[in-house]
């Protein structure tokens, strides 16, 4: 009984600490009372070190005492519906908790130096805490509803960090592109969660799948329903996992600060998609069609990622395509039912890719050092693909790979442009209809309102702390 209490405390601590840090830092920022760099760094370091200890202990206790299900009651309840706050710490989530807290701690430590005196230092750490909260919520959620909450937080943080450098147009535009991809795919996840409620009468993992001890859980929805729900979850995972056809945002996302690139697109955010698929694996087990789709998507992305990655001239872009490719292989592994292999692959890949991305800013110096160490001879690696294809085909492949196989242009033409066109027509029709309704012409109704501008300043800028008049 006492041990259960300790385990519950540890689990709540893992999630609660970054959430508390986020609310503290975010609240202070909202009221424009952000602490200095040193305080921010210390607070974040304390949070993530404690978190790591709690996570490791929780995982150890999972291995010694079995999984922990923690129900904190309902967030809200109406007649016929109850939104449960339920957490699940089992082998899968315990492993992810340790991975998440380890990488978070390392990245926070790296960022405290990397982001020093960078405009938006506090903003970065607020977003880091928000991301930690969201990611841990995904990992520890005992229901798909709660998982979706974390999923949205991670997506939002990702978008805000891609557009971190707000004074330039390119990061902002790329952040918007990532957001559109996320929102479209997230709709699939949300609908999948709703249908899970509908068919399994619960989105709680323990109730939707008869056995909560991962990976042995069994769904009981029937093949048709399971296929529909699984396909929707697949759509949901395409965005975060940067899988075809929703992969275009990942290389563009490298506009954000390097620590956030490592955290999101090397270590954790992209793997959230893999985690989701592993978590709902019992539904896929019931849906062979969805598993085939999963394998096809994964393998296509793996091939696409490796071919496109080969023609990149930027180290972060190359790493982005390599990540995409590896995540694709993990999708295929899950589709083939190799769940344990997928977990090992995910953890190993997250660690390696984080290291590579954190070292990316010094890649040129390292390449020079390596070149010098080899005595000025460039070792030839990675030529296995060249050996497989004839030269003409190879050139053709690389020419198309340079433009990402025109995928972005295709998505733009087939999806984005028609929606924008439709929105324009809707607006034009609305303006015409309104003008007709009130008996005026559209030129009159569209005449802008005369604007008045306040002349006197609203607030006097406060001098920076430490300055003297």
């Amino acid at each position, binding site marked *: 009984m006492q041990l259960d209490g300790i385990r519950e405390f540890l689990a709540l601590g893992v999630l609660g600490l970054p959430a508390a840090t986020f609310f503290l830092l975010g609240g202070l920022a909202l009221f424009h009372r952000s602490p200095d760099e040193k305080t921010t760094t210390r607070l974040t370091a304390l949070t993530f070190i404690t978190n790591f200890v709690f996570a490791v202990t929780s995982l150890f206790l999972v291995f010694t005492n079995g999984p922990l299900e923690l129900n904190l009651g309902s967030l809200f309840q109406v007649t016929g519906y109850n939104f449960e706050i339920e957490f699940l710490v089992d082998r899968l989530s315990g492993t992810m908790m340790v991975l998440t807290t380890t990488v978070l701690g390392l990245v926070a430590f790296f960022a405290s130096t990397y982001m020093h005196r960078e405009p938006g230092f506090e903003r970065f750490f607020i977003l880091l805490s928000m991301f930690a909260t969201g990611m841990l919520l995904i990992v520890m959620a005992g229901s798909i509803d709660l998982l979706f909450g974390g999923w949205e937080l991670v997506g939002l943080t990702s978008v805000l960090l891609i557009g971190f450098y707000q004074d330039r147009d390119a990061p902002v535009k790329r952040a918007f592109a990532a957001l559109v991809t996320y929102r479209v795919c997230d709709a699939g996840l949300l609908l999948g969660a709703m249908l899970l409620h509908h068919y399994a009468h619960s989105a709680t993992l323990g109730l939707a799948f008869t056995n909560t001890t991962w990976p042995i859980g069994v769904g009981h929805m029937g093949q048709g329903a399971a296929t529909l729900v699984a396909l929707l979850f697949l759509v949901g995972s395409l965005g975060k996992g940067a899988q075809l056809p929703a992969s275009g945002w990942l290389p563009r996302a490298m506009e954000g600060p390097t620590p956030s690139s490592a955290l999101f697109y090397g270590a954790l955010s992209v793997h959230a998609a893999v985690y989701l698929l592993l978590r709902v694996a019992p539904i896929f087990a019931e849906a062979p069609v969805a598993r085939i789709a999963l394998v096809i998507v994964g393998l296509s992305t793996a091939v696409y990622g490796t071919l496109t990655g080969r023609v990149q001239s930027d180290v972060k872009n190359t790493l982005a395509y390599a990540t995409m490719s590896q995540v694709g292989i993990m999708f295929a592994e899950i589709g083939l039912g190799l769940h344990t292999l997928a977990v090992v692959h995910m953890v190993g890949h997250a660690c390696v890719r984080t290291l590579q991305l954190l070292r990316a800013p010094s890649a040129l110096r390292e390449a020079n050092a390596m070149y010098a160490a080899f005595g000025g001879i460039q070792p030839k690696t990675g030529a296995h693909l060249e050996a497989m294809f004839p030269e003409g085909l190879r050139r053709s492949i690389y020419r198309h790979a340079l433009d990402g196989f025109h995928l972005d242009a295709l998505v733009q033409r087939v999806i984005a442009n028609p929606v924008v066109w439709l929105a324009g027509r809707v607006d034009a029709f609305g303006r015409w209809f309104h003008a007709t309704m009130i008996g*005026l012409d559209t030129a009159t109704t569209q005449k802008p*309102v005369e604007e008045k501008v306040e002349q006197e300043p*609203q607030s006097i800028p406060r001098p920076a702390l430490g300055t003297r008049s």
Partner: protein
Amino acid sequence: MTRLEFPFLLLMLVVPFIFGLQMPRMTSDRLARRYSIALAAGMFLVASALAVFYFASLKHPQVWVDPILITYAGKLRPILGIDALSAPLLPLSTFITLVVLLACPRIDLDRHHIGSILVTEVTVLGLAMAQDLVVLTLFWIGMCVPAWLDARRRGDIVLARTISRYQGLGAIGLVGATVVLGLSGMHDHVAAPLAMSDLVIHEVTSEYAAPAAICLVLAVVARGSLFPLQTFLPVLFERGHSGLAALLFVSRPASYLVARVLLPLLPDVGPTALSLVAGLGLVTAIWGGLLALAQRDLRRFVGALATSQSGLTLIGLATTNAEGLAGGFIYWVASSLSLSGLVLVVAMVRARTGTTDIRKLGGIAHTMPRASLMFLAVGLTAIGLPGTLSFVGEDLLVHGVLDSYPWVAAAQLVATLLNGIAFFRIYTEAFVGKARAIKVPTGRDLAPRERWAIAGLVVASMGFGLMPRGIVHARDLAAEETLSTESQHGHQGPGKPAPSH
């Protein structure tokens, strides 16, 4: 019995009405602002206390908030009162009024505007308290009069005509429905044919029910800015006074009419009429989302978002199940909080830059970081971020709609998706990125009173979003009350019966 016999309900209407009429005669705008803020703060406290008192009365039947009664057909009948539907709307409306008076740019807040805001608040509160069809109709019609007069005073013929034409149609619908329901009551010898307490017991016969429902749907379409009259809210937000637009959006008369009249009084034709409302709500929600995506003007964008969210609220109310209804009610509150914040931040930006055209703005976060942060924070509460009240509303809405209209649930997600994308497009175009034509001098960022007022809206949305049990329970009670009235039609009236005198 602990009874609140003091006529608070009447005073909440009379005092601001008198103040509102007297405001233009004040000696200075500054004095008018001070008096009005003090009055609005007092109103908010009283409204909150009344709401708390009402919900306490549900657990402790000896506690009771007295309705305002008049002798009608030889018997005392309530014309104003509080029930589960209206109780949370009183603090909500008064809170938004207070925030508007605190945060609206001074340039937009002269004595005339303050007077209009206070009178509009009276009509919003009156509509929420109305227990009689005639009273409800009067407040309904009166609600847009200050905005119409304001448009005429400013010489904005487009807005004045928009309000008169669109709202005229709504008024025709409601007056028609009131007349038909009254005739039905007279035909069946109901003692007080226009008192809702009597009408809810009396079953409206089919020959009267159909025309009444048609009239009500017309009123709902016109006032709810539903397809094909969905162009009202964008024009109101684009050309109207920010504070008045916010208050008119908060009042949501169409949603109120569905919950107060269509559902409980016309259960026989209700399903057909509600299916129609749900269908139009869905088209409107998607239309509003697309419209928001195409906008280059911040104010028109907020109007488009309001149109979409108005449609979503009505879909929830039309589901006739507890989840959908509660979701609709929660979404009503959530979108009121967040869109009021958005329209006010936009007004602040306009007061400093002289424009709301995003092609001219761009990158103003560099000189107005606080305005940018507030726009982002309020916007996130509008598009269903987890941890905000709109997330709770959306979750309940989708669950409720999935039970009643499964395909509508999927289409509804398209609307929320478009809203989110449109918001981020506007935010990235107007606030971040490279600075464009408009250069805002430093030192023109939000003043403390503006920041605190908008932060109050964000905190309210997040506070209710993280701890939603209280408000969800309150709205669930309203949903249950509405549903029980509908299902037990002829046996029981809405809320508590009036005490015998």
